[in-house]
C-alpha cells in the first residue's frame, strides 16, 4: 500500500477513536505522521517482553523523555518510531545502552503507574452501573435467522458466478 493510502486508513481509525471506539492495532514501522495519530503505545521486544506501555504525547515527547532518561536520546528531527525500534535492538544495529530494555521497564516508575492505573480503572468500572444492553450468549442472532441470511447470500453468489453453475451442470 502506498503511504497515502496507509495514512488514510490510520486517519479513519483516528476518527473512529474520536467517536468513542477502543482500538488496538499492530503496526509495522510507521512514519512520523502516522505515528502521531496514536494515543498510546505498547512496545514489545523479542521474546514477548514489554519495553514500553504508555502515552506517546505531543510530538512523541513522553516517549522521547522515557528513552532519554534511560540513556537513548532521540535527535529532535528523527522519526521517533524508527528511533526507538533501533534503540531496543530491533533494527539492524545493536541496542543502545548496556541494560536490557525489558529490565529497565520492569524497574521503572512508569510500570508502577500503569499497575496503579489498571487498578483504578477496574475500581471505576466496578462502581459503574451495569450495562443491561450488553448481549448474552455466543451469537447475536438465532440459528434460523443465520441460516436464512447465509443461504440468501450463497444463492446470490451462485447466481453471480454463472461459469461455475454452467460448468457443473453441463460438463460433469
Amino acid at each position, binding site marked *: 500500500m502506498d503511504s497515502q493510502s496507509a495514512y488514510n486508513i490510520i486517519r479513519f481509525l483516528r476518527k473512529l477513536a474520536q467517536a468513542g471506539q477502543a482500538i*488496538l492495532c499492530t503496526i*509495522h514501522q510507521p512514519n512520523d505522521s502516522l505515528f502521531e495519530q496514536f494515543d498510546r*503505545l505498547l512496545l514489545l*521486544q523479542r*521474546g514477548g517482553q*514489554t519495553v514500553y506501555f504508555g502515552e506517546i504525547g505531543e510530538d512523541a515527547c513522553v516517549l522521547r523523555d522515557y528513552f532519554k532518561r534511560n540513556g537513548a536520546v532521540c535527535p529532535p528531527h528523527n522519526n521517533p518510531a524508527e528511533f526507538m525500534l533501533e534503540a531496543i535492538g530491533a533494527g539492524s544495529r545493536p541496542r543502545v545502552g548496556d541494560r536490557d530494555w525489558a529490565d529497565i521497564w520492569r524497574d521503572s516508575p512508569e510500570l508502577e503507574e500503569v499497575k496503579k492505573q489498571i487498578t483504578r480503572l477496574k475500581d471505576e468500572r466496578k462502581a459503574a452501573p451495569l450495562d443491561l444492553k450488553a448481549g448474552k450468549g455466543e451469537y447475536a442472532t438465532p440459528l434460523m435467522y443465520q441460516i436464512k441470511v447465509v443461504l440468501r447470500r450463497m444463492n446470490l*453468489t451462485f447466481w453471480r458466478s454463472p461459469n461455475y453453475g454452467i460448468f457443473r451442470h453441463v460438463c460433469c
Partner: protein
Amino acid sequence: MVGTVVFLGQVFPPNEMFANNSPLAYDFSSLMSNEFSNINLTCAGNNLIPSGPTYTDIANQVCTLQGAITGTDLVVGSDYISKTFSYFPKDIWRNFGIILAFTLLFLVLNGLLSEVILYGASGRTITFFQKENKERKALNAALAKKRSERKRGDTHDSEAEKLSIESKRVLTWEALNYDVPVKGKKLRLLKDIYGYVKPGELTALMGASGAGKTTLLDVLANRKNVGVITGDVLIDAKPRGIEFQRGTAYCEQIDVHEDTQTVREALRFSAYLRQPYHVSKEEKDAYVEQVISLLEMEGIADAEIGNPVVGLSVAERKRVTIGVELAAKPELLLFLDEPSSGILYLISL
C-alpha cells in the same frame, strides 16, 4: 516435468488435437524415446501366442507387443514406442529444439505483455458496479450530499459524532504470560505484559518482527486455542465470558471477502448477523450507510469487491475489511493486524 504434468493435468497424446501446440507433448515424447531407445524388451508369458509349458519353439509363436518381429522374442524398444505411441527416437533433438523455441516464444511474450498489461497492480484496476435501483439511488444520493457537505466543511466531524459508540467498557490485562509447548518443552511467547485499552483511544502495538505483536493481539482477542495463558485479561474487572467475541471486531492482515458481493452488501451481511437481533433491519441499514460515509467509501459502495485483478484495489479492500468489522458495531474493542501493510492475499497465500 512431473510438476508440469501435475499442475497442467495432462499430456496430449500425439496425432490428436492440440498435441502439436503443446510443449509438454514434445517434452514427454523426447523423454520416452530416450528411455526406450536403449532397451530391448523380451516377450514372455501371456504376451506370447500361443503360450504354455509345451510351446518351446519361438519360431511357432508370435509376440503380441507392437513392433515385434516374427521368429524372435526380442522387441526393440525404439520399435515398440514408435509403433505404439508414435514417439520416434530420431526426433529427440528435433523436439528439444522445438521446446527451446517454445520457451523463447513464451519469454518474449511474457516480456512484451508485462509492459502492456497491468496485472494485479495496487493502482487502479477494473471495477464493476451494480446497477442502481430505486433504493440504492436514494442511498447514494444521500451519501453524495453528505460528502459534498463534508468537503465544504459545513459539518466538520459531524459523522464521527453521529456514529457514537456508547460503551465505556475497559479491557485490562495484567501479568499476562503465554506458553506454547514446543518439542516437550514450554516456550514463553509473551512475558509479564501489563496494559489496558480505553474507549476513545487508539493504541499502537509495535515491535520487531517476531516479537509477538500478532500473538498478543490473538491472545487478547481470545483467538488462541493452543498453549497456556496465565494472568488476568478482564473486562470491567470481570473475566471474559462467552459473549466476549461478539463485542469485539478483528481485522486480519489478509483481506478475505466474498468476491461477488458489493461493498454495501458485505457490510449489511455483517450487520444483519452480528448486531443484536432486536435491532431492526432499517436501523442496521442506516448504520451501514454511516460506516460507508465514515470510511469515505461513497464512490465504491455499489462496486463488486472482486479480486485484486478485477475489482477493488488493495487499499480499498482494506477499507472494506474495516467496514465489515465496524458494521458489526463492536461495543468493546476493535483489533487490527497491520492495517497499513496491505498484503495482496493472492500473493501471501
